[in-house]
């Protein structure tokens, strides 16, 4: 293995890792605040990818603007979904919430994927690159796209952290995830926070899809792989653990990068899944143990 190969692996791993961390934060938030195991998270990644494709390749907008638009559109998509589906489910459903919500997201995933097929066809809508440039980082020549994507991931993660810890609304979100009734008692509007959380989670996924457009073209099923990866991260970090998702994201990114190199596409998927199963088997509350008691017997 040459130095450049290792470097390449590292770069790809970090890049993917950063974006997976971003998506995983969204997933962790949705579970922590709304107690929903989100099965359709990948579809919002796809929405972001489609939006960015149209903004950049079809309407010729500036890449950064395209990504911002993608973020906005996925945010709105999340808001609409929450209000249209989860809000009524919360008010009307009397059965087991977690399972019903999970099933709802499964149905949602199917509907969205079919929607993409019907709306955009089965083609791969991709771009070769956002910027025609390479950047010199630590003596390596890396495509500008990758550097910017990683930068966006970092900025977004930092932004999320600041939002959750330093703003009134962010603290309210954390409050709802910790004690719903307590949040009500201090005057927090649960419905509003839930809509906001889902929208933010969807936005994070959308940013992932938009940033990686040059690597992963928009395609009806483009959300499937990121979904698995996000779940991988969340399983490592423990469902609901936002900070752990960051470290977990990087770990998964590196793991996928290396295993892809060693095993090729087909077996890399198998390796990821086997590891996922083992994790769920031996450390379901995550490597960093958030002590989710409901998992164990």
């Amino acid at each position: 293995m040459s130095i450049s190969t290792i470097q390449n692996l590292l770069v790809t791993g970090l890049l993917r890792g950063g974006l997976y961390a971003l998506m995983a934060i969204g997933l962790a938030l949705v579970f922590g605040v709304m107690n929903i195991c989100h099965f359709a998270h990948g579809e919002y990644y796809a929405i972001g990818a489609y939006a960015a494709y149209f903004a950049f390749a079809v309407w010729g907008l500036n890449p950064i603007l395209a990504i911002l638009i993608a973020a906005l559109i996925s945010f709105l998509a999340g808001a609409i979904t929450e209000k249209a589906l989860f809000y009524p489910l919360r008010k009307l459903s009397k059965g087991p919430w977690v399972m019903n919500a999970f099933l709802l997201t499964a149905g949602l995933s199917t509907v969205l994927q079919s929607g993409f097929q019907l709306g955009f066809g089965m083609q791969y809508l991709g771009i070769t690159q956002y910027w025609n440039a390479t950047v010199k980082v630590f003596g390596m020549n890396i495509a500008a796209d990758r550097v910017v994507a990683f930068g966006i991931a970092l900025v977004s993660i930092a932004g999320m952290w600041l939002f959750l810890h330093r703003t009134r609304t962010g603290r309210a979100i954390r409050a709802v995830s910790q004690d719903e009734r307590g949040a009500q008692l201090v005057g927090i509007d649960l419905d509003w926070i839930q809509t906001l959380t889902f929208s933010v989670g969807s936005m994070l996924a959308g940013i992932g899809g938009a940033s990686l457009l040059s690597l992963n073209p928009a395609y009806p099923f483009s959300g499937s792989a990121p979904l698995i990866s996000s779940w991988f991260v969340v399983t490592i970090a423990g469902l609901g653990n936002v900070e752990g998702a960051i470290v977990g994201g990087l770990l998964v990114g590196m793991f996928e990068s290396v295993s892809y190199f060693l095993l090729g596409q087909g077996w890399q998927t198998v390796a990821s899944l086997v590891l996922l199963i083992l994790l769920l088997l031996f450390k379901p509350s995550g490597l960093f143990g958030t002590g989710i008691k409901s998992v164990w017997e």
Partner: protein
Amino acid sequence: MLEVKNLQAGYDRLQVLWDVSLSVTEGEFVALIGSNGAGKTTTLRAIAGLIKPKGGEVRFLGTNLSGVPAHLISRKGLSLVTEDLNLFEAMTVQENLLLGAYSRRDTKKIMGTLEYVLSLFPILSERKNQLAGTLSGGERRMLAIGRGLMSSPRMLMVDEPSLGLAPMMVVAVFEALKLLHEQGVTILLVEQNVNNTLHLADSAYVLEHGRIALQGASRDLLENKYLKETYLGRR
């Protein structure tokens, strides 16, 4: 300030309250006492909007609270400190208190209230940056009451603050409530500890099986034969 008329409430198919009427005027310290299962917590929950009443009426400051969601009732100035406390375990004491003031916007005034609460409960001041989940039982109760005060409420409702506390802590908590009352805070206190409560409150309502069995000024109730036998164990 608070008017409850013929309140009926319960959970799903189980009706707990059949006919509860009480009222609290401004500045009063009113107690709702009764034994386990009488429906005291249910009453508070129904007033605070955490459960929907099946019948009757609740008016706060003249407004009908029926159908109003809990968070809006809280913003109207009716603050509830629950028996379970419902603290934000993974946040610090300070963060919990600041969240108590969520519905307020004036930062200066919020900090002022924070100082006041910390002076009321000096222990909380010491543990300002500790996670709520790491506090002792009594400290958690104080934090819950403190958080309830952070919204600068017109009326504070407290559910069984003495439950599970060491006697010294119970004294401390009751002292704090007494001080609050002296400073003009309107309080509705739910308690099983009848003796201490009646010595603290102005008036009280006795709840039995979802109905008000007895009511009146505390000093009168303390002389009441039935009450003495049933709740104070004296003849």
